[in-house]
């Protein structure tokens, strides 16, 4: 069984993969190592974890104006997430999503941070602004 969330397109395109969820905002420059795709911010819940090829589900961006530049670099190094799902629109996350060239959706009708957990299988349809979620528990049962 899947759950469908509806919002609006930030960047078009379609991608699917495993979710990596954080309830904390993410710093780009100084918060992420673009060479490894890992979160490095002191005390961040995801510290040491990589978002490479994950569907990154997060509240939004914070910190330095180098956000777009650092996430842009992750595209060059092959460390970028596959798609972005987030709540709070800012210039940092909008520009970062654009230059990362990954599907991105925001403004969803249910809070993605409440619905999606790390490990869930998520399909992001950036063209229609739709996010489909298959819970990890269900994925395990069917396999």
């Amino acid at each position, binding site marked *: 069984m899947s759950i469908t969330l509806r919002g609006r397109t930030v960047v078009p395109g379609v991608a699917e993969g495993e979710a990596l969820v954080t309830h904390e905002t993410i710093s780009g420059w100084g918060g992420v190592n673009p060479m490894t795709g890992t979160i490095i911010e002191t005390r961040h819940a995801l510290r040491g974890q990589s978002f490479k090829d994950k569907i990154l589900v997060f509240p939004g961006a914070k*910190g330095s104006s*180098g956000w777009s530049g650092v996430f*842009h670099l992750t595209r060059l190094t092959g460390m970028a997430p596959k798609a972005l799902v987030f709540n709070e629109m800012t*210039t*940092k996350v909008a*520009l970062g999503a654009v230059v990362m060239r990954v599907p991105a959706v925001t403004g969803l009708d249910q809070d993605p941070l409440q619905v999606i957990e790390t490990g869930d299988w998520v399909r992001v349809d950036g063209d229609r602004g739709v996010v489909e979620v298959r819970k990890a528990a269900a994925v395990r049962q069917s396999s």
Partner: protein
Amino acid sequence: MTARAPSASLILTDAERAMLDGREGKARQKAMLLLVRYAEALGAERFVETNNVAGVPGTYTPFLFNYYGATRENAYDLIYSRFDLDSDEVVTVPNMTVHSCHLQGGVDPEGWQILGAKPEALQASQDSEQAASAKGIEILKTCTPYIAGNVPARGEHCAWMESSAVVYCNSVLGARTNTEGRESTSAAMLTGRIPDWGLHRDANRFGSHHIEVDVPVESLMDWGMLGYFVGARVGERIPVLTGRYGTPDLIRYKHFGAAAASSGGVEMYHLVGVTPEAPSFESAFGPNRPVERIRYGLEERRRTYEELNARGTDRNVDYVMLGCPHAALEQMEEIAGLLEGKRISANCNLWVFTSRAIKAVADSRGLTRTIRNAGGAVLTDTCSAIGQALPPGTRVAALDSAKQAHYLPAIMGIQSWFGSTRDCIDAAITGHWNGELT
């Protein structure tokens, strides 16, 4: 990226349409195309004109140079096209028609060896600087353009990078900018446009959270801690402060805003009765009701201090870094004054970062010489976090900037202590951290 028609909700002027259609040349077309993608991502309905853009246009490191297979001849156009404009096609970058400046970055051309920079990094920095300068970009090389020659006027629409400069621009000067990125500022330099979104619009400049300051906030260190506390509590929203603070000066604004933009994403704040868009509590909030009232008292102050010192255990300090954001002249005077006739510990390095503009004045006043005579270094263009440069073998740093205390340990994997400028100079002289909350 291939051209496609902008969405119906984005309204373009004839001049913008002409740029998008390529009638103003390839570079402006690619720049406009990126700005359209960006405006659509934001959900903006139009662009605003700007004649004040601060970014890091076309700057490159050996990584970008090698990644794109550049040569010294084609590097600027190649990297500006591929990275800055996110264009798959390489275009020739024309001279800027918009007032544009280069923020911090690259390598200090005088102190590069102290910074431990490799000759190829210096070469890349100097080549991209020369190319940018030839296009008409002012090379300020600082995170503090507002004390190095670019002071926007109230109400002026800007497109600035550098979160600490953005929050200063909006809150202290009453000019208007969102936190732009490298790609959007480089595109704005070619087009004079930026999405009319966020803080460019009156309705988005009012406060959201009420911060009641219930403890006296006077010193630079206290303003840094207050900023760090506020940013963590309000995130990307707009705090309105009332209570027990005096009228801050430039360096207190600088440290407060930089801290709030690091622990959170604060791009604008109001100090009731002080900052230009907050003559009263009511005018600061406008039509908004405060979503939350947050008290900053002794307990909050103590906890903030502890958070900023959470990455320090060893009190033997081997590095003191000052000048985040880049030191203002009064800070250079204070540092030189504290070091007059003193000698820093043989086990410790002291680096003071500032802009080229401030350093020129400090040189002529003899302040740089005083700092050097004590064993310290005055460096420009970068900082330890931006340049990822530490004295060899650094394990424990002392910092007077909450922003730097937030970033440096995370980026460089070292310990750090946070305190006053005096605490830091004391640590440089004794090699030992004696700072405490008083």
